[in-house]
């Protein structure tokens, strides 16, 4: 770990400071004192948090934490650039997320004990998703918000963590049952149907609810998560095949049944049919990415503000326009490096539940960023979900931080035992 010199940590904290300085040089009279104070605070926190974590918690994986801080600083400077009114709130959510992350690490013994009761986790997640059906309100076309007093919560972000816990615990306990084939249907090797039932229930429940809430991104994410975890636990390709068949059928049915799905696919196939209307967002995103080139237009030089929802779903296009290929590459690399370190943690785990859970957390983060990056760059039909740690949004930020907290707690635990 001695390769990781302390001065590297200053580089990520330099980002908000430099951005603020740039803002000041460009038009100093607009800069409010409040924003300067927030920037100073952000710089301090981004340096101190990894250092303290390294000191207090032995054996913590410091790479993951500093990469997360890097992504947060990118998020902050993009907020400063795109929507200065959200700069304050985003900083607030990052601080809340970091505090919750440390709480998760401190109380990890108790939290991870829930893994012994998988059905509680499963029922809780279904309750959370169900509560959205009853009390949910519609914001921005997705009916997946709950308004509790002053805060709006997106419960699916938290249900994600619960479902991951359920899948890890359930699959570990029934691994032998799921893996020893009793039935041969052609080239498929499957256990009796009654053992598959909870899995299929989770798949179809998640899918149905999200299709009903028109939240296609989360539906895709949940489905991918379940398939990924099942394959990781059983290493049986029959499940992947079944899932793909199930996915194609349900995609086809929802294409026929729902108007908004048809619109998404039509935009994906040919955005130039209606560039000023329905596909305005994706067309502007493509222009922004193309305009960025290799080095980007330079911070504050591009015009990403014209993309609708640029500070949440389309923040990647803004990064692509202002920092170019280099910035985009760095962000993608940061996600991949976090994934790499997490898989390393997972491989070192002795406890199989922790192993599955840490792989699931890492894989979900990577899958989520893949889905939204593919949507923004028109590789896949656009499905609106947040880019973890970068997009604006309290629920997403806090849930991602709790996930990273769990991952770090698992890594410290396993290393303590090894020594």
């Amino acid at each position, binding site marked *: 770990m001695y390769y990781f010199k302390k001065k590297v940590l200053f580089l990520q904290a330099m*980002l908000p400071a430099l951005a603020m300085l740039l803002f000041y040089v460009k038009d100093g009279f607009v800069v409010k004192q409040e924003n300067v104070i927030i920037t100073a605070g952000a710089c301090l926190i981004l340096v101190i948090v990894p250092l303290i974590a390294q000191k207090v918690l032995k054996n913590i994986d410091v*790479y993951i934490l500093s990469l997360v801080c890097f992504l947060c600083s990118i998020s902050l400077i993009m907020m400063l650039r795109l929507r200065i009114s959200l700069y304050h709130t985003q900083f607030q959510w990052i601080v809340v997320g970091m505090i919750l992350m440390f709480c998760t690490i401190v109380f990890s013994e108790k939290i991870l004990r829930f893994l012994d009761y998988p059905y509680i986790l499963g029922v809780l997640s279904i309750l959370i998703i169900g509560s959205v059906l009853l009390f949910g309100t519609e914001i921005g076309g997705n009916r997946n918000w709950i308004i509790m007093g002053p805060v709006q919560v997106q419960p699916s972000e938290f249900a994600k963590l619960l479902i991951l816990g359920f899948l890890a615990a359930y699959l570990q306990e029934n691994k032998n049952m799921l893996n020893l084939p009793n039935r041969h249907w052609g080239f498929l090797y499957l256990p009796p149907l009654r053992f598959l039932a909870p899995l299929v229930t989770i798949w179809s429940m998640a899918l149905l609810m999200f299709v009903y809430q028109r939240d296609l991104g989360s539906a895709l994410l949940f489905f991918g998560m379940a398939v990924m975890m099942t394959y990781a636990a059983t290493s049986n390709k029959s499940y992947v095949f079944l899932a793909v068949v199930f996915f194609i059928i349900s995609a086809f049915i929802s294409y026929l049944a729902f108007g908004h799905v048809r619109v998404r696919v039509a935009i994906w196939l040919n955005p130039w049919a209606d560039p000023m209307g329905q596909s305005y967002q994706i067309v502007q995103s493509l222009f922004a990415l193309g305009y960025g080139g290799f080095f*980007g237009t330079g911070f504050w030089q591009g015009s990403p503000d014209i993309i609708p929802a640029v500070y949440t779903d389309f923040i990647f296009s803004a990064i692509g326009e202002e920092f170019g290929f280099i910035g985009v590459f760095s962000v993608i690399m940061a996600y991949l490096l976090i994934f790499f370190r997490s898989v390393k943690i997972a491989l070192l785990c002795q406890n199989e539940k922790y192993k599955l859970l840490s792989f699931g957390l890492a894989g979900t983060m990577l899958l989520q960023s893949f889905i939204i990056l593919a949507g923004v760059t028109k590789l896949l039909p656009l499905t609106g979900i947040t880019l973890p740690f970068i997009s604006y949004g309290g629920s997403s930020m806090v849930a991602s931080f709790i996930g990273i907290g769990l991952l770090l707690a698992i890594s410290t635990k396993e290393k303590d035992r090894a020594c």
Partner: protein
Amino acid sequence: MTIKIAVVALEYALLFCICAFIYKTMRAMYGDLHDKAYEETKVTVNKKVALVILQSYDEKLVNKRILFSDMLTLGRGVDNNIVLADAYVSHHHAVISPVKNQYQLEDLHSRNHTYVNEKVLLGKIFLQNGDIIKIGTTVFKFER
């Protein structure tokens, strides 16, 4: 003019910071991996455990010891580690898997059940030295 130069300089500084951070982190990780790869790995000795067959449908099998350290599957199907060609045994009857330093016996919802120390096994159990396992007409003793 100076402001313009300062702005451009700051823009490149920002880009440089992003690149430098990713580069440094990657190098640090590579160094870590490199160190790990050339560390001497400790050799772990697998302690073997054994199943002794006390009774069986086939006289030749009696008093045979089966040594194992990894997962062991029992059943009538030919893909098991121990094949028991006995009508009372299910295709995939039971499995013994290592959990940390212990061994866990799991009944795979077999038709005629698995018996440990004369009791029906529901789900899973950690095996102790000297446990008597009955599957179909075959009786094993677990030794470690």
